């Protein structure tokens, strides 16, 4: 074919076949649907039950297997970190932990609630809990790729 005769630039990556792109889209759609369905189902479990423990342990086992058994293509981490730049993160995370620890030390009273006590009532709503679980699952996938 004429298109095959056109010389490709050396820096140009080989074009991906169209069928492969379609297959990847279908795979992503199926995975996304599965994750949403799982999150919705997981959100229906009652806290402090075996089911509630399982809905966390199963993704934990899958992520553990993926991380150490079949690691996906990883996003290359930076070779070094700017210490000054990172310090902003370190300070903010430390303040968050300190704020939480202060509430925890006071036994999380009404007048000084811990983050958990503020988040728990929100998780009482089924759609919100499902969304939180979905975000947690996606964060796990994001971490495995790092």
């Amino acid at each position, binding site marked *: 074919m004429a298109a095959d005769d056109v010389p490709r630039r050396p820096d140009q990556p080989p074009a991906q076949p169209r069928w492969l792109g379609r297959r990847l889209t279908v795979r992503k759609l199926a995975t996304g649907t599965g994750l949403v369905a799982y999150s919705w189902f*997981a959100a229906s*479990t009652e*806290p*402090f039950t075996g089911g*509630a*423990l399982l*809905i*966390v342990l199963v*993704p*934990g086992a899958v*992520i*553990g297997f993926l*991380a150490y058994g079949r690691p996906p293509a990883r*996003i*290359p*981490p*930076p070779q*070094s*970190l*700017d210490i*000054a*730049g*990172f310090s*902003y*993160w370190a300070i*903010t*995370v430390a*303040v*968050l932990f300190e*704020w939480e620890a202060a*509430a925890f030390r006071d036994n999380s009273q*009404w*007048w*000084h*609630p811990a*983050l*958990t006590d*503020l*988040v*728990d009532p929100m*998780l009482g709503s089924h759609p919100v*809990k499902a969304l*939180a*679980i979905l975000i*947690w699952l996606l*964060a*796990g996938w*994001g*971490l*495995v790729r*790092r």
Partner: protein
Amino acid sequence: MVTRVITIVGFAIVILALFVLEYLGRRKDNRIPTLGEWLGFIMRPWPGRFLILLGWLWLGWHYFSR
């Protein structure tokens, strides 16, 4: 009542600060790394990877199992 509001506002400010840092980190020519970059850096050696994944698992257990 005032103490409770201060606590909640404190949490809100710190969480907002995390989002601001992520926004700043995504801008060009910035010294602040993104969350993914510094987590990726910590996760380079296997103990760092193990601890971060353990933290993720703990977060799920803490908020969704109990």
